[in-house]
């Protein structure tokens, strides 16, 4: 289950979800717009370290987040290395890595319920367009939280296939996975209705 939130009392935790999201967007934009040439990437890295080096979060958490996004960093580095060479690759990868770990602070320090409330408030301008913002916010949150559930269902399907000696392959996997996922979606829909979601 995607449960990034970690309870705590850091300054980031104390900041309300809406202002925090805006502040982090500004910081991430700033980091993204830093010059590619040095010391731009060093400043990006320093900002990321600065964001985590506050009481209640710490650099150990920064390391954990870097490990979590290692694949994104690796893919970015590889692509940049092929097309731009080592110097720009290091610089761009540092900026991308910094932006990723800084943006992770939002989910790390904000309960999903507060995120949902902030999203609903943030989507208020869409009321004029007839958009049901409660539904949009819920859709986003449920999508994010259900991704790991789908991963577990996929694992269960593979296990069941292995137990029956089925050969590995997308063709044998896709159909049962789809059926299980749709069944889960049905049950989740019932649960949402039962909890008062229109």
């Amino acid at each position, binding site marked *: 289950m*995607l*449960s990034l939130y970690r309870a705590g009392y850091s300054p980031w935790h104390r900041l309300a979800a809406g202002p925090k999201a805006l502040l982090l967007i500004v910081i991430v934009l700033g980091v993204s717009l830093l010059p590619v040439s040095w010391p731009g990437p060093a400043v990006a890295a320093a900002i990321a370290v600065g964001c985590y080096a506050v009481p209640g979060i710490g650099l150990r958490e920064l390391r954990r987040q870097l490990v979590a996004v290692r694949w994104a960093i690796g893919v970015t580095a590889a692509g940049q290395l092929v097309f731009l060479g080592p110097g720009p690759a290091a610089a761009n990868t540092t900026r991308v890595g910094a932006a990723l770990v800084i943006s992770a602070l939002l989910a790390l320090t904000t309960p999903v319920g507060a995120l949902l409330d902030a999203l609903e408030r943030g989507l208020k301008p869409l009321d004029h367009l007839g958009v049901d913002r409660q539904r949009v916010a819920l859709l986003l949150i449920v999508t994010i939280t259900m991704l790991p559930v789908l991963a577990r269902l996929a694992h269960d399907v593979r296990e069941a296939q292995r137990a029956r000696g089925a050969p590995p392959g997308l063709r044998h996997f896709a159909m049962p996975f789809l059926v299980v996922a749709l069944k889960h979606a049905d049950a989740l829909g019932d649960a949402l209705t039962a909890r008062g979601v*229109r």
Partner: protein
Amino acid sequence: MSALLLDEVSVRWGDVVVLRDVTCALDARTIAVIGENGSGKSTFARIVGGLTPATRGTVRVLGLDPARDAARLRRRVAMVFSNPDAQIIMPTVAEDVAFSLRSDKLPREEKRRRVRAALERFGLDGIADRSAHDLSGGQKQLLALCGAFVREPDLVIADEPTAYLDARNARRVTGHLLGKGSHRLLLVTHDLDLAKRCDQVVFIQDGTIAAIGDPAPVVAAYEAHLAC
């Protein structure tokens, strides 16, 4: 008027008739629904809970028409299903319980108080910040119950809530469902001992009500049917 009233209710899915001309008036506080797999028990519960519309007939639940008063019905009726995994919506235990109160127009502090009280009641207060999906099966089902009871419903509908649980957790869950409280209970179950503990039992067979009444004779009728 009886709390649960079904008059000539039928449900048809394509060519399949799932419930056929079901008529009953149920007023007991705890009602068990028993019957074989595919007999129509869950559909009966879903009709009462407003999740499945009747193809024909009249349904009244606590005086409300589930088709026309869906929002009001949702505020008074809570449902618990057999698969605890599919009932978790939010990432952490406390957030999942609080989600049940999202659509209620209650002051924030009242919501917090209710969530705290419900977590304590179901023994989940010590794991309030844990990832809901990382809980054991028993804890997940207690969480589902907690999410249902935090809304202080007048009627709880539980569709085989102990199907995935071991004996200890099944006992805890049924203890909460059948325990003292102001709520009514409609319990779909294969556990005949559990059915005998309810005030009234409905035996459904092939989409119709085969027997209805006091637990002992109705359960006996079902057991006789199973022996055939």
